[in-house]
């Protein structure tokens, strides 16, 4: 068990653009503390001179011919968006006046 406080939980939620209620923050603090306590075991592993993981056979990524591929139309893109205005995706106000 590792200590993760409700306040830390709320900070994580803010970083992840989640808003938590008080009871949720309490429950998550306890559960995440338990999980973090478990993953602390990795500190016991000797990783000196060990590189970070890379697949055995990296995939070759050759250059592709420079030709246009298929793409979505404006109507298709707009049809995905929950809120649109004219031919635009509508976004709530993000800057103070």
């Amino acid at each position, binding site marked *: 068990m590792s200590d*993760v406080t409700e306040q830390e*939980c709320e900070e*994580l*939620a803010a*970083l*992840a*653009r*989640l*808003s*938590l209620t008080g009871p*949720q923050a309490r429950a*998550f603090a306890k*559960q*995440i503390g*338990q*999980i*973090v306590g*478990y*993953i602390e*075991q*990795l*500190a016991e*592993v000797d*990783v000196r001179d*060990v*590189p*970070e*993981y*890379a*697949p*055995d*056979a990296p*995939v*070759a*990524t050759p250059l*592709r011919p420079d030709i246009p591929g298929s793409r*979505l139309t404006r109507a*298709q*893109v707009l*049809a*995905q*968006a*929950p*809120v649109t205005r004219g031919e635009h*995706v509508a*976004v*709530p*106000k*993000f800057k103070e006046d």
Partner: protein
Amino acid sequence: MSQVIDATARELAAQVRSGARSAAEIAATFLERNDAVASRLHAWSRRDDDRARHRAAAIDAEVAAGRDPGPLAGVPVGLKDNFVTAGVETCCGSRILAGWIPPYDGAHVQRLAEAGAVSLGKCAMDEFAMGSSNENTPDEPVRNPWALDFVPGGSSGGSAAAVAARLVPFALGTDTGGSIRQPASMCGIVGLKPTYGRVSRYGMIAFGSSLDQAGPLTRNVRDAAAVLGVLAGHDPRDSTCLDEPVPDYVAACDATIAGARIGVDRSVIDHDGLDDDVRAAFETSLAVLRDAGAQIVDITLPHFAHAIATYYVLATAEAASNLSRYDGLRYGAQQTRPGLRQTYEATREHGFGDEVKRRIMLGTFVLREGSFARYYGRAQKVRTLIARDYAAAFASCDAIASPTSPVAGWRIGEKQADPMAMYLSDVFTIGANLAGLPAISIPGGFCRATETMPRLPIGFQLLAPRLGEPTLLALAAAHEAATAWHEQMPTQVQS
């Protein structure tokens, strides 16, 4: 009806291609079967009966015109709801994608269509494929067709339950830490996770991009081989997809296993949480392979004990990153608020369930400044050690065997309040994802019915080196030829 629903996918395709049976009759028979029993299981997130009938009629028209619709001609399939399907709502088990109708087909849907398969709809799943029980869902949890108050496993639980219950001859699932193999084990069917990169990830909604692979769930090994043959192959739209030849996987099932060496790490099998019936079934499966000509050899996987911790650092970090795209602006559901930040937060708060939030927060924790080297960087190094352990073990064996799941199953709700207990149930499956290796779960017996446990299936898992799917399939087919576990019909859907 039983002539159709008990037939293998390959038998049905052969009948359609030869004109012996129409795709329309097959589709109608499976739709009737679904009408009769599907409501007991909640295996579908959405059925698409009309589209299936039209598609089957189109297959029949191709046959009538003298064209070959392909190796899965007229075979019904269920698609886990994280496969992007043009014109069909695709929610990935989440409220945040409620109402999303994709404008394109993913690689899997395209390849199955080119092979002549007929989709009956989208299978229920744990939200964003995060879970081992199919309980992380805004909908009804999927039921295990062997005992309706037990979980079917997860996260491809809807796919596994549908195949076991003969609602479809095969289904597609995805596997990030065991999500094809563990539900296959709990439902008594075959589940194959291919080598990382063997199958394209284009159009498969991302969870942990360095771990995710799509694969088949079937009732027998040769059907899994046939479906893998359709799915596998290079796709320039996924830069991690391997440009390697695709062998004849069905033919690989006929290869001899005489002299094949099966590695077993006995310290892994002595795992504390391993159920006695699962251990006994595992030893029986080893004996089956030994009798078929294989040798059992001891191996060691020194870092096996750290696999779960490594996985839950890396998978949650990748998930936190992948799921940051769900902002409620460009697609999916939006909770509109006066400002942008409040809209993001309200959309994600309302749209994600608790397990997804927990993993996003854990991923954010391990990635944030100050913790990155301690958790994420270190886990990436331990992942290297785990992959090296497998490489070293494969110097002395052709495949590695273990149980798929430490227990046969658990009751719905039993582990829901304890995420850590749920994570520990992934102990045997995670290694294949961390090392990018192919692995298969095949039926390997049943637990004994007791006062507290019903008779539930038990899975037997085999791992092979990278691109060693032919080896897995040969061993699995030999095991299947000597056993009859895969022929049993789940008790709760027999009529």
